[in-house]
């Protein structure tokens, strides 16, 4: 579906930006309110619901027993996928996975994978024969902007509360999945010429490029992604990275507060 608003909206956003204002009255580095619920879905081994302003997503963790990759016989695997189904908004159409949903899933996946928070060796059951596969599926139910940060938060929260169903697989007693770190994502969108944190749907519609930063413990960078048309300067990046350092630590605290 074609969105008809952007050119008028762009003018309005530019006028607001000139006075250092945002369309919903927030400050430039203010986030919308976030509610995180964990262990909220029967049948998922770990689950989280994130309500991020008016954006709503669910993340669920499932495990499977599989044969290891030939080049890594003693390592398990991790997969993270996101679905932008038509339930999420008027603009989403049914069909095979869109480039947007693939990018979303892969950016969230990289942040978690590259942080090393899951020890792949610990997922090995019998080297060369049996390993655990960890699958994180993210379901976007209501897209009102910044689904990236909401999905990344849901994914790590679901992972951190996941229980390996070892009894069902006949490999001993159920145990909590070991997750050694809490990587979180912070996204910035260029709106009216300057970057803002946590753009809402209108700001995304009338905005330009976006930058996604995933930071782990101690503020280390684990994944970066620039999306959509536009460029930025190193000075701009330094500024948003500073904001991300602070914000990611707050998000990690929120996730860690949910652990059993």
């Amino acid at each position: 579906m074609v969105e008809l608003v952007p050119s008028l909206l762009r003018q309005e956003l530019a006028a607001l930006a000139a006075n250092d204002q945002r369309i919903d009255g927030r400050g430039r580095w203010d986030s919308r309110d976030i509610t995180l619920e964990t262990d909220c879905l029967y049948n998922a081994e770990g689950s989280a619901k994130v309500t991020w302003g008016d954006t709503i997503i669910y993340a669920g963790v499932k495990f499977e027993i599989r044969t290891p990759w030939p080049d890594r016989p003693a390592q398990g695997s991790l997969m993270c996928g996101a679905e932008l189904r038509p339930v999420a908004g008027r603009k989403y159409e049914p069909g095979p996975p869109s480039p947007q949903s693939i990018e979303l899933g892969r950016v969230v996946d990289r942040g978690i994978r590259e942080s090393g928070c899951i020890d792949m060796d610990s997922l090995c059951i019998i080297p060369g024969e049996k390993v655990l596969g960890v699958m994180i599926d993210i379901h976007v139910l209501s897209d009102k902007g910044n689904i990236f940060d909401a999905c990344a938060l849901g994914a790590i929260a679901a992972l951190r509360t996941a229980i390996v169903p070892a009894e069902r697989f006949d490999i001993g007693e159920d145990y909590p999945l070991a997750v050694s770190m809490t990587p979180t994502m912070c996204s910035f969108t260029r709106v009216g010429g300057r970057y803002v944190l946590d753009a809402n749907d209108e700001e995304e519609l009338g905005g330009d490029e976006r930058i996604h930063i995933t930071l782990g413990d101690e503020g280390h960078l684990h994944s970066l992604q620039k999306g959509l048309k536009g460029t930025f300067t190193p000075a701009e990046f330094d500024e948003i990275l500073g904001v991300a350092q602070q914000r990611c630590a707050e998000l990690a605290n929120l996730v860690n507060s949910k652990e059993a």
Partner: protein
Amino acid sequence: MGGYGDVKLLREDGLRLDGRKVDEMREVEIEAGILPAADGSAWVKHGLNVAVCAVYGPMEAHPRKIQRQDRAVIDVRYNMAPFSTSDRIRPGYNRRSREISKVTAEALESVVLVERFPRSKIRVEIEILAAEAGTRCVGITAAAVALADAGIPMRDLIVGVASGKIEDTVVLDLDKAEDNYGQADLPMGILPTTGEIAFLQMDGDLSFEEYNTCMEYNLKAAREIHVLMIDALKRRYLEKNGGEA
């Protein structure tokens, strides 16, 4: 319906494994208007099942070949989330979800006043987040509440309910074990005000008398769930109007 007879589903005292009486349904909770991006939405928890439904429209129907000159088309998608079952489901449409989507759409077309919106489309997106037998019924209930929340005119709500047979006994609202090892399942979409039936499927083995008992149980359950649906919509209406009726 494989392997019935070898799993005990009724206790010595005549109650079911989860302690329910034969004509007792699982607990149901309903919320209307939970998805800000949608024109209308609903959340239904039925036992351990969780379904969420979003309604978009009426909107222009495209591609144009799906347009009907005299009425709206209802485009239903029933989908199970990959994490909704004990073994992960591969994302995407399969034969089962296509069939359920089709018959659900036809059931909803029987209650929505589709002739009010020629050449348009109403999108109904049913997402099953947790599944424990009876998800198509929960999806129908959620769809009806979401359509009403979207302000789409309907001649009645529609309630999804099911009865079936376990150990030669008719029971209301099968849970997972009863569905897997039972002898019959009869899901229905019932118009609670008139008692008409807009959705019907069945598999297994039922005598005529057993069918009648199922029907009686389904009607009873539909009336109970109807009260909860109306209540959820009223709460939503009060919320929208700042608490003023």
